[in-house]
């Protein structure tokens, strides 16, 4: 009777190696190095995403304040919500681009959901009837997130596709529109739940779908 098959031994046998393949790959790697592309650190990319999302939101607030579209009293009255949105944006952006931020990404999702619930619950009864249809809010929130979305998608391509990473980046981007909604819209909680949060979801879904459809520049974690 023959001895049993040594599966471990068989598995550890080296497959036949093509030395020419290593040479060709090294030549391709040297070609890539010769391009002298700048090293992109993930922290720098995270700061760029924070600046694109939170920074754009702050610029919008300043412009609205400057042109009188929003009063200082309104800004102060909603400061706690605005700070919550900026914090959510920063945490989601950092978590999305961090190589080891799996816990932070989960926390970012929970924080974004909490933030969304607070935005709905904190909305009071409007004192005037709306002059614009609800979809205008949805469309403008999505539109204001386009630039941060491009930044997020470009940054995400530096790593292997991870659905949670792409979703959290989308949530970071979506805070820009939500921020705008807190400044420019005075409608009731139903409108916030139905139109503002819909826009946030659309942006998050767009980040997920676009990232999945693009070939990553690297397979690094």
């Amino acid at each position, binding site marked *: 009777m023959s001895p049993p098959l040594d599966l471990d031994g*068989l598995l550890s046998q080296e497959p036949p190696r093509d030395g020419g393949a290593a040479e060709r*790959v*090294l030549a391709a*790697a040297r070609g890539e190095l010769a391009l002298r592309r700048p090293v992109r650190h993930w922290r720098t990319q995270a700061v760029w995403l924070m600046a694109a999302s939170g920074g754009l939101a702050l610029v919008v607030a300043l412009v609205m304040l400057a042109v009188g579209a929003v009063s200082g009293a309104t800004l102060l009255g909603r400061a706690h919500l605005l700070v919550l949105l900026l914090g959510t944006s920063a945490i989601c952006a950092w978590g999305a681009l961090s190589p080891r931020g799996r816990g932070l990404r989960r926390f970012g999702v929970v924080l974004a959901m909490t933030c969304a619930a607070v935005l709905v619950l904190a909305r009071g009864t409007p004192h005037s009837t709306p002059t614009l249809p609800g979809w205008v809010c949805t469309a403008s929130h999505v539109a204001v997130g386009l630039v941060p979305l491009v930044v997020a998608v470009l940054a995400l391509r530096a790593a292997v596709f991870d659905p949670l990473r792409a979703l959290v980046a989308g949530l970071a981007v979506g805070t820009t529109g939500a921020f705008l909604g807190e400044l420019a819209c005075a409608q009731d909680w139903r409108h916030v739940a139905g139109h503002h949060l819909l826009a946030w979801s659309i942006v998050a879904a767009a980040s997920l779908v676009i990232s999945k459809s693009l070939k990553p520049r*690297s*397979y690094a974690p």
Partner: protein
Amino acid sequence: MGSPTDEELMERFRDGAHDAFEALFARHSGRVQGFLTRMVRSAPLAEDLLQSTFLSVIRARGRYEPGTRFLPWLMTIAANAARDALRHQQHVDAYASQEDASGPASVQPPEGDPGMRRQLLDALQQLHPDQREAVVLSKVEGWSFEEIAALRGITAGAARLRAHRGYERLRELLAPLEAAR
């Protein structure tokens, strides 16, 4: 003075020393190539993936965190590249199977050791990619189940189960070889 560690070389590479990359390539390209050949079987595809892996190291050197062990980081990149290729291949195979309904070739008796190794590589391809990855990483690369779990975002128990099921399936697939010896 001893030779620099992988981690020291990677940090030097991050700081712009291209010779450090060449040293890392010389040290690890063979191992990565072996892993990829086991994962995808096809030599041309394994070469493509070897290239994707080392181009990823170059392009994503800004994502390498000082203090991270280099070899698991490198093998994670290779595993991600293989997984992406296998996912793509599954789509192609699903399309091809609509035209050709015949199943995968069964394992044939060996013709000496090289034949046996070939049969093993064929049998590995019949495992689910998750199981194949777990078997190769645990049995060949010596990864712990905790490390495999961290790679795929699953529990260590789930990683152990994947490896165990893959290994048992491999034994089943290679049973005809044993009978023919």
